[in-house]
């Protein structure tokens, strides 16, 4: 395979023109990143995005329209995130986790990814502790909501605002 010299007058690959347009402004990059995980972004796509209303609708579907109170949930997530592709998150709910009083499920929602649902965890008294962790994708800086359903039918929620740093250079070279 021919090796290229590192010349200043490098001719851009044909596939690169959309990339150069994308790299020109931060606003363009944010728009591209709303399309999902980072990737060679050649054509701009605008799928339906989650919005605060969409997020509220998803939460209402989870709760069946029941009232949600604030509290009892600790949302452990870094406020300033290096990269939105893999954001560690831990959700803990204060609960004795007995048959009479336990968390039955925990769900996480977002406002600015393409869809509002992130993940849902189903627990039981066997869990011992309502303490779950995973890593999630965040398309951009946004609010996250964790909602817990208790065995008595009540719902509790916690909201957190996170700032997502975007990578400076998008990987786009042809292999």
């Amino acid at each position, binding site marked *: *395979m*021919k*090796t*290229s*010299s*590192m*010349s*200043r007058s*490098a*001719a*851009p690959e044909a596939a690169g023109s959309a990339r*150069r347009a994308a790299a020109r402004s*931060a606003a363009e990059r944010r728009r591209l990143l709303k399309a999902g*995980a*980072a990737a060679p972004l050649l054509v701009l796509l605008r799928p339906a995005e989650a919005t605060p209303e969409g997020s509220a609708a998803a939460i209402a579907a989870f709760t069946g329209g029941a009232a949600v109170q604030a509290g009892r949930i600790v949302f452990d997530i*870094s406020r*300033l*995130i*290096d*990269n939105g*592709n*893999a*954001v*560690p998150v831990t959700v803990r709910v204060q609960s004795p986790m007995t048959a009479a009083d336990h968390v039955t499920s925990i769900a996480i929602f977002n406002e600015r990814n393409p869809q509002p649902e992130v993940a849902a965890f189903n627990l039981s008294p066997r869990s011992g502790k309502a303490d779950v962790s995973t890593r999630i994708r965040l398309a951009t800086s946004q609010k996250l909501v964790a909602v817990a359903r208790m065995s008595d039918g009540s719902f509790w929620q916690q909201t957190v605002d996170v700032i997502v*740093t*975007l*990578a*400076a*250079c*998008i*990987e*786009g*070279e*042809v*292999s």
Partner: protein
Amino acid sequence: MMRRAVSGSRAVGESVRAASRNTAAIAGLMGVWVFLMEPALAADDREPRKSGVEFVGESTRALQRDDTLNPGMLWVSGGETMWNSEPDQGGRSCAGCHGNAASSMRGVAARYPAFDPAVGHAITLGQRINLCRQNRQKAAPLAPESEDLLGIESYVAIQSRGLPVSLPQDDGTRASAEGGRGLYFKRIGQLNLSCAQCHDRNWGGRLAGAVIPQGHANAYPVYRLEWQSMGSLQRRLRNCMSGVRAQVPAYDAQELVDLEAYLAERARGMPLETPGVRP
């Protein structure tokens, strides 16, 4: 500051030659000075070099620190399986010749890239693995950035975790690193930037929202969150070159190997962190 760390050994060499013309006592003092100049033994305030892990957020650092969290361990685990498996074409497994990797591969990754007399140029650890496959295992080489090659590379490299980067000092390897040094300081691409401009002169600053690290090669292969996957140092170098709008050399191009050799020399003495995690 970076150049002092690399050329320190040369300055020290000249001093020792001068001292040999004087008394043994002065030679002894020079010996103490050589000792103090060794980057691996320097205290924090004498060590201007910082691993990339010092520039990432706390949660990313936590991913690297804890093997139960580190996604790179999936590749290490896959590599261990490959190490112990015979290749499809029926040759010996890696273990068949090299036995227990923890002992036979200890220190190996810290000594690459290195000049290979059999092929006449410096090669990376990945190329060494493929040469072994072809010449000793009668197996097909693994594609660059393939899950299998990154797996074996990660498994071999983790056996050197914590050991200081220590490129061999033979003429062939030093020539490769010298060639890489020239590339490191050369401006490339439509943005007309050299590696040195970001990673020597502007480390700690920001490029868009991202902090610029010093660019040491002491954690590869690395799980890069941006890639959502494991990748080699060459992949990272090619990303940077693409980022400054330069023509990107093919995988295993000699200029990339030479640049890797320079970066290893530049990171001499820094502990290997493979599998690293970076944003």
